[in-house]
């Protein structure tokens, strides 16, 4: 179906220079594209390179436009569509603060264990859990924590990389 909305994960290699993120975000807001998730960090200090991982959605024609428009930005080195270029690994990290006592506190710890979330901070009345996984897994964990005293969530958004030996 040509008009069907698809979700794509894009990797964008950019020069780490002032304003580069504003260019990317401005492109999305200016042209009305969706950003479902965006992460950015420097990955090579010597070559001043940053990598942006973007999750976006649109019709196939819009996805093609997004890639062409990103590629047109002067400080962009490469744009890769991980969704079409074969299998890839996508992960998100979250920090989740839960406050409670008694059974609820024990239950939160038990569920965290099942989800392989680690307590990275604890007080008598609170935990901060760290977990990594697919966004769906984090959603599930957060939902389970809600009745158990969830107070705060901080998520990174998705980072992704292709499977296999080939680099970007």
């Amino acid at each position, binding site marked *: 179906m040509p008009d069907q909305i698809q979700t794509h994960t894009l990797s964008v290699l950019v020069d780490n220079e002032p*304003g580069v993120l504003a*260019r990317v975000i401005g492109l999305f807001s200016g042209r009305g594209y969706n950003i479902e998730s965006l992460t950015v960090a420097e990955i090579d200090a010597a070559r001043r390179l940053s990598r942006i991982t973007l999750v976006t959605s649109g019709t196939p024609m819009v996805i093609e*436009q997004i890639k*062409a428009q990103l590629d*047109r930005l002067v400080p962009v*080195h490469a744009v890769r569509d991980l969704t079409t270029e074969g299998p890839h690994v996508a992960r998100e990290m979250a920090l989740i603060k839960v406050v409670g006592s008694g059974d609820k506190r024990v239950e939160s710890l038990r569920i965290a264990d099942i989800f392989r979330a680690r307590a990275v901070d604890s007080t008598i009345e609170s935990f901060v859990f760290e977990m990594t996984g697919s966004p769906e897994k984090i959603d599930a964990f957060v939902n389970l924590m809600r009745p158990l005293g969830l107070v705060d969530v901080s998520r990174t958004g998705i980072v992704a990389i292709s499977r296999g030996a080939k680099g970007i």
Partner: protein
Amino acid sequence: MTTVTRPPATAAELTGAEVILKALADQGVEVIFGYPGGAVLPIYDALFKSNYVRHILVRHEQAAVHAAEGYARSTGKVGVVLVTSGPGATNAVTGLTDALMDSVPIVCLTGQVPTHLIGNDAFQEADTTGITRPCTKHNYLVKDAGILARTIHEAFHVARSGRPGPVVVDLPKDIQLAKAPYVGPEAIEHRTYRPRRAPDLQAVEQAVELIAKAKRPLFYCGGGVVNSGPRAAELLTEFVRLTGYPVTLTLMGLGSVPASDPLFLGMVGMHGTYESNLAMHGCDVMINIGARFDDRVTGKLAAFSPGSKKIHVDIDPSSINKNVRVDLPVVGDAGETLAAMIAAWKKKKLKVDRAALAEWWDQIKAWQARDCLRYKGSTTVIKPQYALQRLHALTKDLDPYITTEVGQHQMWAAQFLKFERPYHWMTSGGLGTMGYGLPAAIGAQIAHPGRLCIDVAGEASILMNIQEMSTAVQYRLPVKVFILNNQWMGMVRQWQELSHGGRYSESYTEALPDFVKLADAFGGVGFRITKPSDVDGVIKEMIKVEKPVIVDCCVDQKENCFPMIPSGAAHNEMLLGPDDRASQTTSEEGMVLV
């Protein structure tokens, strides 16, 4: 002749301002359009001490950019602008957006408050790179004098290569005053920006095979051919003649094939010819070279050229499949691709389908017989079309440079002035900026001294940059402003008539200046024409005057511009004249479109 003084050769002695001027000189810049202010005083000081770049003092920064556009579009060179921080930069924004939409190569240098004050709401501070990010191809804020020279060279490279566009370099005042090293333009190899020029030869071969097999072919070409340079227009004309196929051009592409060539069907699109639009609708192979399927051209997308295979040659991959899905994209420069297409055509000894082509031309000739540009003449009032026909007849041997403002007059100019070669037609197509024409004519006149430069204007548009008459007078630029004065924002009135029940809300100008006196007040010469019989005489007089001229040509106030495809309609739903109007009104779907 004045002697040319170059800045000192030893790099260590230069200030940032001197580095900027040296970089401009090494880029071959001969003229810049600008307006001074506190944040660019060091550059103006360096300008004062040197005379190897000519500075044209405009009267408004918007006009500086339009003048640079006129200069660029009539020469193929980069137009250069210099403005101060804050209001200087914000005034330039309309011009920059105009240049972005029409792919015009501009480098705009803006002053900025000193680096240590950036972000403090300092006097005349504006976030220039923030404001201009969406209206430039790229922009720079130079915070380190060490990379100043390189940045200027890079700005020129980005502006002129690939799909051309405006580039802003924001220059804090302390950087202009600091000592700065100089490097030449030779060493610029960009890390990431390397636009592709050469087409994929396999795609070219597929394209020519498809072109040869066509039964109802049409070339649809645009501004990209102009951007590519005069050679591309020659190659296009050669290829079109080689095939004998019909060709239509966009507003931005006019002049890419000679208007006098029998293969040329006239302009396409909303106010294009009947034959062009019906050929677009009915063709089986469309060969798009350097045009971007703009909504003024496609009309209703769902009904756009439903039966054709589409080839699209464009240097910018983002232009491809943006509005219209094409069958055969070719990413590359128009000129290089045309050369490759001609070579492939000859190598493969391809032949067109003569019988089918003859039938197609018969059909086209039947459409042409409708004579879609005809209008009711008059001996008492001046018809705008008549005035332009006379302007064309009386100036064509002088090969004039024509600019326009925006409105009905612009469309009539596109229909009735015939362009034989590129670089002679400058109009604001993508943004449709009223106020473009006079400064653009000034830019063209600077580039082509002694040649005839005419701004075909409307009385409303011209008032948007009328102050530039003063610039024209200062530099003794004999630009001619030819106003088709209908006292209305004619284009607005036409739309109100067609889609808003004739409720003419605010489209009549109750008070207008006396344009003849206005010309006089600026130090130019004014003429008024009110009778058809006086048109020729005044045009001849206008050509003779070696000063800036305003001609106030008082035309029929009620005339509308036809043919017209109402917004939201398809090519085969064209209105041919005022009598067509009653039977069709704009659809609800079309009402929301501009």
